[in-house]
């Protein structure tokens, strides 16, 4: 696997991946080591950081570190659900549209346009109005973000696929009796796989950010703990104006790190696999 060893020579890639994996580890393993329930009331509200509560206590008397660790877990899950849905839809519909063309292509493109136009905020507001507050969990928010963010990527996959379809080796595959499905799975997907990876990283980051955005304005998460929900509570009780920094800074910092690390991974993938100028 010379591609992997090559990638690991890129400092940006290594740094991004290391930061991201550390955060993932915090979300997965953290709650097992720091065994404090994030929902229990553990002391007087707004207790500043202390040895027994390293990140202090929030507006509702809960431990902020426990909240943060569960929040990371929740946010990563939202990101994974949303990115998984969006990537699946965009890859499937984008390649199908390009390979089948004609009416199939036209219909898919119209649908993608509709979903590009609908913002996740609008859809979430409508759902928030009809669903009971308790139903707004990780899965629902992840689904809404995923379903509203695939449109642009589908167009991206479609255009990449169309350019690959011009190659001689696709004509060779057709002359070998390869079906359209086989062309998508065996010819196109392996070639665009770096782009798929990069797009997953980007979808992931934007989904995590989108969740925070939705939750902060009050139409997002209510049930499961995410970084967005921590910030929402902090914002609801006007912690910033009161100088209660420990409920705001840690989740923001984690957000920025997730964003930065995946951004580094995505751009180094893109730089590495984009056609390079070089000597033939």
């Amino acid at each position: 696997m010379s591609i992997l060893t090559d990638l690991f020579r890129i400092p940006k890639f290594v740094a991004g991946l290391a930061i991201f994996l550390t955060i993932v580890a915090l979300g997965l393993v953290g709650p097992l080591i720091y065994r404090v329930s994030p929902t229990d009331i553990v002391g007087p509200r707004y207790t500043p950081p202390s040895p027994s509560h390293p990140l202090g206590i929030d507006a509702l008397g809960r431990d902020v570190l426990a909240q943060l660790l569960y929040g990371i877990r929740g946010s990563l899950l939202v990101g994974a659900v949303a990115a998984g849905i969006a990537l699946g839809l965009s890859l499937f519909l984008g390649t199908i549209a390009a390979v089948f063309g004609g009416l199939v292509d036209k219909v898919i493109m119209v649908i993608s346009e509709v979903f590009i136009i609908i913002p996740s905020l609008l859809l979430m507001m409508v759902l928030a109005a009809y669903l009971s507050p308790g139903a707004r969990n990780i899965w629902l928010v992840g689904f809404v973000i995923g379903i509203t963010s695939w449109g642009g990527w589908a167009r991206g996959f479609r255009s990449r696929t169309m350019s690959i379809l011009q190659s001689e080796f696709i004509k060779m595959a057709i002359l070998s009796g390869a079906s359209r499905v086989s062309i998508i799975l065996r010819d196109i997907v392996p070639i665009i796989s770096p782009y798929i990876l990069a797009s997953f990283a980007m979808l992931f980051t934007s989904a995590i950010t989108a969740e925070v955005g939705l939750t902060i304005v009050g139409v997002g998460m209510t049930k499961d703990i995410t970084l967005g929900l921590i910030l929402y509570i902090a914002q609801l009780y006007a912690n910033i104006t009161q100088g209660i920094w420990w409920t705001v800074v840690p989740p923001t910092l984690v957000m920025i790190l997730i964003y930065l690390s995946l951004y580094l991974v995505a751009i180094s993938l893109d730089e590495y696999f984009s056609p390079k100028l070089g000597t033939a």
Partner: protein
Amino acid sequence: MSTILEVKNLAKIYEIGYIRKRQIVAVDKVSFSVKKGEIISLVGESGSGKTTTARMILRLIKPTSGVIKFMGRDIWRDLRGGSDLRWYWRNVNGVFQDPFSSFNPTHRIRDFMYRAFNLFNEKLDRDTKERLVREALQMVGLIPDEVLNRRPFELSGGMRQRVMIARIFLIRPMLVIADEPTSMIDATLRLGILRLFSKLREEIGTTIMFITHDMGLAYYISDRIMVMYRGKIIEEGTPDEIVNNPKHEYTRNLLDSIPKLYTSWFK
């Protein structure tokens, strides 16, 4: 000899521009037929329409009008569904010009060869397939163990072109359309590749149609040459007729412009 391919009034017109439509006639009512077992060359310069003609015969580009009949079946009207198409490509297949872009860079040579089994009606077990692939590679002078697990960029252009011809030996079609199969290959390797096409005809009885800009190449290898210019076939004849006694002015000019090894224009 019986006719296996018949082309009648074949035309391809491209429309370009959105507001003011302009028509580009790539192939202009071309008619010819190919007899079983012959080697025929379609010679023309870039833009003559020769590659478009080849692609239409390979059923990769849809003609604007006209008929292509293979073994009496109209390939654009009579073939329906996957099994008809597989039958067609089992019997009519191609070799392309560019040994670099004709291979998916992510596939191994084994994948490339095995894919052709899609065209086979008979169910073959893994061992038989492997044996057939190895035999085909040996036919073109490659050592199977050296190439099967390689990826295309690990092979030279000449070797890749051999692999492409090995694929033809595996499929054993009745008609091969070879589109400039030697133009991107070094001179000292070119004759070797051309010999493989002769071998294909000798051993399998394949009919071969060369698409080329190189009159020299056509002169050696063909039984019959057709000269294409601006979408039309302007002259047809045996190599000696074309080279020694060209009728059309364009053919005469073309032959005059070919640099010769034993004479010089300037001395």
